[in-house]
């Protein structure tokens, strides 16, 4: 253990965390024990082979105790133009009631921070938390031990939540580094539907480290649309652990867009616990500079007759690094599973790299599973064709990249959101690549 890691441990050991529930303290202790057992990942850890997050934590952060101040922040610049939404705002990992807008929610739909939840809600939270987040990831354990804020969203049976819920995370690191651990717990009951958009941004140039744990429980016939937009400033380090559990005939669409940040690691686990489920999870990473983006996805088919489709695409420029690790896991009794996965990458510069590991682990025989993976560059003939027709090189390039990237958006159903994402992508491609 290097001295820096030691001081990380010391700080972690010393930090006091709020307890929201009766056995909250016990759960945190357990999580900490797990974290101590696993330890922070090194370059030898298979799951973090290409993602030197521990090194970054040692180098860029000072691990002395400091409570992040929740300064006054204007959030307008970070609000996406996606029409009318419900809004939850977290500044430096703390729920801001003033900035959030939660009026007009359908009856009986609960949106609350863990702290402010009434006792009935608290008991629901307590019964759900940690039930779907089984993992060996050290940062999930770190989050369970130290999360300072949790948001709970509960949609009772047969309610279609009309407006999407936007969860906006802003880390204000103008003066000091920011370290935050937040949780999101979502329960969508039978026959309901909900759309969540989670967006993270940061202010200032000081380093940020943010761990997210998101647990989403989707009951029978329920529908979840989940979109994550990662557009932090250059010094953001993030580790997300997202768990989605699906019951019979539920549908889940997820989309992850990564544009900025220093080291961004997304662990997405979809547990298909029911039959006749459908899940689509797409992702797009358009990164340049020194950004490293690492997407680890697992789709775990535990029951027969379900369908999953995954498509991740990436464009890496400058010294950017892309990592993709996708796993399709089909359990012994999950017959008639159809699972597909595809990962496509374009490298734009000499120093950009991609490490991809698409995996299949199939323990049932009557299945159709496939994965495809490509790495390449723009087709020179296509570029020439466009240039020969008077389109300048830069526009031609952007046009082709845009065409390459766009089809991942098919998974986004909300038209406003789709238009906004489309614009983000196209701006990015015209400006930076």
């Amino acid at each position, binding site marked *: 253990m290097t001295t820096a890691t030691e001081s990380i441990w010391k700080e972690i050991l010393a930090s006091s965390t709020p307890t929201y529930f009766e056995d909250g303290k016990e759960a945190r202790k357990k999580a900490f024990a797990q974290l101590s057992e696993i330890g922070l990942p090194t370059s030898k850890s*298979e799951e973090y082979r290409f993602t030197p997050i521990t090194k970054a934590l040692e180098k860029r952060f000072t691990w002395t105790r400091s409570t992040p101040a929740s300064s006054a922040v204007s959030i307008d610049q970070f609000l996406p133009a996606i029409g009318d939404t419900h809004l939850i705002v977290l500044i430096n990992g703390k729920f801001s009631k003033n900035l959030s807008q939660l009026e007009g929610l359908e009856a009986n739909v609960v949106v609350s921070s863990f702290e402010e939840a009434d006792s009935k809600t608290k008991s629901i939270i307590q019964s759900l938390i940690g039930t779907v987040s089984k993992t060996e990831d050290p940062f999930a354990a770190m989050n369970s031990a130290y999360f300072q804020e949790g948001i709970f969203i509960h949609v009772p049976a047969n309610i279609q939540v009309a407006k999407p819920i936007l969860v906006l995370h802003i880390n204000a690191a103008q003066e000091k580094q920011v370290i935050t651990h937040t949780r999101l717990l979502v329960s969508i009951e039978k026959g309901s539907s909900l759309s969540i958009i989670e967006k993270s941004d940061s202010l200032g140039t000081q380093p940020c480290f943010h761990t997210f744990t998101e647990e989403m429980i989707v009951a029978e016939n329920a529908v979840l649309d989940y979109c994550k937009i990662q557009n932090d400033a250059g010094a953001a380090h993030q580790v997300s652990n997202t768990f989605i559990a699906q019951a019979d005939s539920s549908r889940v669409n997820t989309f992850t867009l990564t544009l900025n940040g220093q080291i961004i690691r997304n662990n997405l686990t979809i547990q298909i616990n029911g039959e006749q489920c459908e899940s689509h999870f797409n992702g797009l990473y358009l990164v340049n500079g020194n950004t490293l983006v690492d997407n680890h996805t697992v789709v775990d088919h535990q029951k027969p007759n379900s369908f999953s489709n995954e498509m991740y695409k990436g464009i890496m420029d400058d010294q950017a690094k892309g990592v993709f690790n996708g796993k399709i896991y089909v359990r*012994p009794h999950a*017959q008639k599973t159809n699972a597909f996965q595809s990962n496509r*990458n374009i*490298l*734009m*510069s*000499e120093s*950009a*790299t*991609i*490490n*991809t*590991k*698409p*995996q*299949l*682990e*199939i*323990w*049932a*025989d*009557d*299945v*159709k*599973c*496939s*994965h*495809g*993976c*490509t*790495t*390449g*560059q723009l087709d020179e003939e296509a570029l020439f064709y466009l240039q020969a027709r008077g389109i300048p090189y830069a526009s031609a390039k952007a046009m082709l990249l845009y065409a390459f990237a766009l089809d991942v958006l098919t998974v986004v159903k909300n038209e406003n959101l789709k238009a906004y994402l489309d614009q983000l992508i196209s701006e990015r491609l015209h400006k930076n690549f």
Partner: protein
Amino acid sequence: MSKDNQVLEEFTSKEYEHGWNVNLEADEAPKGLSEDTVRFISAKKNEPAWLLEWRLKAYRQWEKMTEPMWANVHHPQINYQDIIYYSAPKQKKSISGLDEVDPELIKTFEKLGISITEQKRLTGVAVDAVIDSVSVATTFKETLGELGIIFCSFSEAVKEHPELIKKYLGSVVPMNDNYFAALNSAVFSDGSFCYIPKGVRCPMELSTYFRINAANTGQFERTLIIADEGSYVSYLEGCTAPMRDENQLHAAVVELYAMKDAEIKYSTVQNWYPGDKNGKGGIYNFVTKRGLCFGDHSKISWTQVETGSAITWKYPSCVLKGDYSMGEFYSVAVTNNYQQADTGTKMIHIGKNTKSRIVSKGISAGKSQNSYRGQVHIMKRASNARNFSQCDSLLMGDQCGAHTFPYIDVENQTARIEHEATTSKIGEDQIFYCLQRGIDEEAAVALIVNGYAKEVLNQLPMEFAVEAQKLLALTLEGSVG
């Protein structure tokens, strides 16, 4: 479905056909591994001091290493002190003809259906027969000698061509490359050596038959093939082993070295004892195979048909160092009962304009686990590298598993990489189509599987293709899933 189950049962209860045991009085080393064992082996083989030093160095490195645990296989811990590291069949001091060979040995070959005389007369294949670690007969040596081709046992090469061995031994697979390679480097018993001089195209398929024979004997073969500028060689390796109750460890090392414009084609048919239907016994096959395309425009091609062994842990790799060099990997791996296979390849692109192609077909039946694990690594300097990989898995029966773990690491923007993998069972509609046309279920499965594996089988040389097809048909007899 009941018929399916019945046929499945028939298939799974099929015993190993090549099982028997010939009593050869072995000249064994005492059980266990220590520096003394290494010295014993070296002394037994009258090796020069530098080779003993090399072995000891490997042994010391091995001592510091730990057994790799990352493979997707499960087996009881191997007790490396409970293995006999050297055993040689009794033989006269030197052999000039087949008549001097132990008649028991000849019988062994006859049972296998590859009697040396037959081979010599009919097929024109030069056989370097290896029984329990010591080469006992080498044929067609003179014909090859006229062309300047050296094809002999490893120990002979150590005596007669020490300069070549000194230069190339460990040049592709360093002694400390991995746990099993280090073990092999320390205790390797014998193997084959082959050198093709500049501009020579080897006129015949070179072949060697490995057989594990004495109980409790680890087999540590070492093969080194060097193809000098502009030469070509096709090398065949085929294996069958007698029935055994205790697990036997096999940790071979194969090194291929291709210089400028040279081409090496290495084909394997592996049918070692896979254990009985309860998963008892069977060979542990932990092999390190690697080829180095050292010169520009060189080419190395691996083809393997894997049907045996309780556990296979094998990744024939190509290091594409020369510009415009090319690596190929074609594999069919069939697992049944409790067999476990973790196999695949590594393509390391270092030179410019290098190309590689991977075609892997896995078939799993019974309670077996079949994994493809491969790496395609494009180094920074390797511009315009091209790779195509295809890994398909076919499942028969609902208790087996098929897994794919490809690693694709690209550090150069001009690389074009494609990887695709599928997993499925034999299509019911495909079988139905055949049934409709009067082809019975068994023949239909054989037809479908042979078609499925054809891309790989086609890569085998004629002499081998027949054997491989027979083997595949035999393994799949009655296996309708």
